[in-house]
C-alpha cells in the first residue's frame, strides 16, 4: 500500500512526529511505500538542522533524515507554515525540501491512505 503522512506537530513537544516516524518505518519494514511525508503547522520544526538534542535521547530530526537517506522518502515542508516559524531553505536538515501545500493535496490524491499525526 502507498501511504501519505501528514505531521502536524513539532518534535519533542508532542508525540505526533515520533509516532509518524515509527509508523513510516514500520510500514516500510512491512514492504509498504511512503509516497510522501508532509510537515505542516508546527510540524515544520521537524526539519530544522539546528536541532541538537542531548545525546542520551533520540534525535527526531536525524531519524527523519535517515529515513530519507535509506528509503528515499520524500520529506516536504510547507513553505507558508515554515515562513511563519522561521523555517526556510537555509534552515533545512539534509533530506528535507520546501514546497507548497499543493504537495499535500497531491499526496492525498496519489496515496492509497493519508494518515494524519497530531491532536
Amino acid at each position, binding site marked *: 500500500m502507498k501511504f501519505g503522512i*501528514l505531521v*502536524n506537530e513539532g518534535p519533542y513537544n508532542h508525540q505526533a512526529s515520533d509516532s509518524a516516524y515509527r509508523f513510516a518505518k514500520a510500514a516500510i519494514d512491512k514492504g509498504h511505500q511512503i509516497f510522501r511525508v508532509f510537515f*505542516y*503547522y508546527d510540524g515544520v520544526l521537524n526539519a530544522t538542522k539546528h536541532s541538537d538534542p542531548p545525546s542520551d535521547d533520540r534525535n527526531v530530526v536525524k531519524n527523519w533524515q535517515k529515513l530519507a537517506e535509506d528509503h528515499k522518502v520524500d520529506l516536504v515542508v510547507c513553505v*507558508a507554515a515554515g515562513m511563519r516559524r522561521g523555517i526556510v531553505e537555509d534552515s533545512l536538515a539534509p533530506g528535507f525540501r520546501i514546497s507548497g*501545500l499543493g504537495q*499535500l*493535496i497531491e499526496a492525498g*490524491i496519489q496515496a492509497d491512505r*493519508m494518515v494524519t499525526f497530531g491532536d
Partner: protein
Amino acid sequence: MGDKMEEEYEGGVVKKFMFVNRKAPYGTVYALEVLEMVLISAAFDQDVHVAFLDDGVYQIKKGQDTKDLGHKNFSPTYRALEGYDIEKLFVERESLEERGLSEADLLVDVEVVSRADMAKLMGEMDVVMTA
C-alpha cells in the same frame, strides 16, 4: 478504487476530501492554516467537504472582532469559499447546541448535521485531514 474513479472522471482522479475544523479560530494558528489548506485544495478539482465541530464552530460565527486581540480577522474568507466552488460545508448540531449557538449565528450557508451523521459522512470520505 483508483482505477474505477479514473474511468468515471476524465482528466484525473477525483477523491472525496474532508477538512475537519475542531479548534477555536484564535489563540492557535490551526484554524487559519486549515483554511489555507482548503483554499489550495480548490485548485485540484477534488470533491471538497469542510466540517466544523467542537470549538471549530466558532470559526464561522458572525460578528468576529479581533481588533483588541491583535490578530487578523480571517472570517470573511469563509464567505469567499463559494467563489472557489467549495460549497459543501457541514456543521455538527451537537457542537452548536453545546455552545448555545444556532445556524442563525453563522456567517456562511451550511448544512447542519447530527453527530451520528457527521461520523457517517466522514466514513464516506477518501481523505480526511484535520487540526
